[in-house]
């Protein structure tokens, strides 16, 4: 019973990722796509969590944390790029 619930959850999360991909492909503006990528990352965090329960392992908890950080950094980097065209700015006194 519990395993079935987990599998259903995994299935639904996968559907959500697919939906995120749809937005990423379709998305009229670049910001839509970036948000879609962010969504996919978050869904992946959830998915990894469920997989960990399903597999009865704690080996993937680092991956969850890392993905959380990276998703944030990635979104910020894209945002900055879209806004300014650069990610790392030069020093002011150059």
């Amino acid at each position, binding site marked *: 019973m519990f395993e079935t619930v987990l599998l259903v959850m995994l299935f639904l999360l996968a559907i959500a990722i697919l939906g995120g991909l749809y937005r990423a492909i379709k998305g009229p503006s670049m910001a839509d796509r970036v948000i879609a990528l962010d969504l996919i990352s978050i869904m992946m965090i959830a998915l990894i969590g469920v997989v960990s329960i399903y597999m009865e*392992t704690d080996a993937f908890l680092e991956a969850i944390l890392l993905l959380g950080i990276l998703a944030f950094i990635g979104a910020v980097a894209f945002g900055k790029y879209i806004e300014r065209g650069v990610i790392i700015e030069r020093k002011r006194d150059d």
Partner: protein
Amino acid sequence: MSWLHIFILFPLLAAVIIPILFKKIPRVHTGWFVLVVPLAVFIYLLTFLPMVAGGETAMYSLPWIPRFDIHYSLYVDGLGLVFGLIISGIGALVVLYSIYYLSKHREALHNFYVYLMMFLTAMLGVVFSDNMIVLYLFWELTSISSFLLIAYWYARRQSRYGAQKAMLITIFGGFAMLAAIIMLSIMGETFSLQALMAQSDQLVQHELFLPAMILILIGAFTKSVQFPFHIWLPDAMEAPTPISAYLHSATMVKAGIYLVARFTPFFGGAMEWFWIVTGVGLLTLLWGSLLAVKQRDLKALLAFSTISQLGFIMSLLGMGSAALYYGGGDEAHLHSMAILAAVFHLVNHATFKGSLFMVVGIVDHETGTRDLRKLGGLMSIMPISFTLALIGSLSMAGLPPFNGFLSKELFFTGALNAAELDIFRMETYGALIPIVAWTASIFTFVYSIVLVFKTFFGKYQPERLEKEAHEAPWGMLISPLILTVLVVVIFFVPNVLAHYVLEPMMASILPPLAGEFDIHIEAWHGFEPELFMTIGVVVLGAILYATLRKWIVLYNNMPRALSITNAYNSGLKGMESISRKVTDWHMTGFSRDYLRYILVIFVVITGASLFLLDGFSIDTANAANINGFEIILSLVLVGSTAMVVITRSRLTAVIGVGVLGYIVALFFVVLRAPDLALTQLAIETVTVALFLVCFYHLPRLREKEEGDGINVFNLIIAGAVGLLVTLISLSANGHRLFPAISDFYEDAYELAGAGNMVNAILADFRAIDTLLEIFVLCIAGLAAYALIKLRLARREQDENQ
């Protein structure tokens, strides 16, 4: 190591000190020191003469690369020894002549004599070598030293052209010969010529017999200027005259003759050998004599005459090979006369042609020109040169009382005998042989007369000459004088020569008949057909010379475009332009084209070989079950890939790549690889960030970029590559030959004290890989730093300037 080994290498060793002598003792002409070398070799070789005349042979062997059956082995028999004597004897005369011919102040004598000594060793090596690989080595050395000598005056364009042409043609022949040698060694399982000859009976039926024969003949024909490879010789006349006299009349061009004679015991008796050698020889004889008549340059005339005379000898070797078909008896003896004529004329030609070249060199040296239209009336000014030229020419034309007469008579005998052969399908074409031979002799007579009359008779034209003509110094005349004396002496006492020289040579060429020769050369043998043929030659030749002005114009009508030199030149140009076109066609400079080649070749070769070897077979017995969410994740993977491929915006593509990488990480999770998943996530993020950094510097995509539309060809290639890789991995997955070795690593905790197996493998079991990966990252980091920094530094420098 015998003395013979040393004497063959002696010139090469002597060549080392020649430049020192040239620099240290400039007062004495370097040639005087060099003269000792060929003279010593000549005297040493003379000591073999009694032994060889007695019908004996000698073999001296010295291991060189014994594992591959390559020995520096020398074989002394009649053929090799006579060639050796000609080479060293005329070599000495040529060195003597060159002392007076080349100025010690203006010429680079050290180059000249070093090349000459190289050539001397090479030529001696060719004629004495028993090991075919060593023979080939010396053979190529003759080509190289000849190349160097032709281009002796390398500042002149024509010299370089002539040298290149000679090089290309003779090296081409040399390669053919190398192939033949390899075939022969496969047939006989030996590199030794004598061991090979002993097996000739068994090997006639071998399937490589004919290819080896043809390749050997290509080698011999290119070296011996046979039709159509004769074209390099006239251009080789740009060499200094002593070289023309030595290499291009007496020695090197006879290396091919030597080769044919040497291989006659092996190939002779076969119909193909008879026809090819005789046919090409006769064609060369006729062609050379026809073209010699129209030449206006004395050396060119002599070059074509050499071509013609070499064809003469070659055709006789072909005719004489019929003797081996019979192997003994009267018939064999009848045809062995042709071999006698060949070896006799070989010796005769070396004498009179060497002297003629030297005389032409004298004329050139003393008048400043070799042009027949400017020369004339030199008889009373240069009486000795005139006498020498007259004797040489009449001998070449085949008149008594000179040695050319004897060999020409024997030539006619051989041709008439060959015409009556009833083997080798001779009934049809046999009659042509004497006719061609006779026609060629008439033209030989004409150009011989042209040579003497146009140079020495007629009106003296001092205003057209560069120098005031006068007789040459005695030193220059000694060498042609000695050769001319030989020309006359051989006529009067041919049988001494026959005993010591010709009989041993014939014994080498026709070993089954050895010891049975009873040679008696006579100048007069009654009113035979040969005599009438000679009379016909003289009469018709005289008539043709008298009417020369009327028919020489015929040559002008000969289409220039059809000449072989023209074919050679346009062939070279054509090859160059074709290869340039091919290169331009496929080397486009676009990496996308090169990628196409690589992928297409990969698909074709791998795919075809797997298909032909039945490599594709998919076994799903061991496949795991697939969950619904895994299918959906795969769909996401495919979707993001499609997004990357289809999109027109770079940023969208990068987002697609990001999605792709994250989903791959997710698959790592699902497939229980936590370390991989962690690394993949981090690397993917960094990569995406790096792409974004790069994009800032990239220009905007153009609206109509070529890559934007779908290129059908690329689509096919990409599809094929993907399909192939998928098929290969599916097939490979179904065919595990061995169980995995991962069981071993499962004990990681006991073996390495590690709870994490992946990390234990990376840092303990197989740490060398990790070390090198660290190096790779180091290098990449340094390279990135260097690329950015150095470029910035240069830009700043440019701005400062």
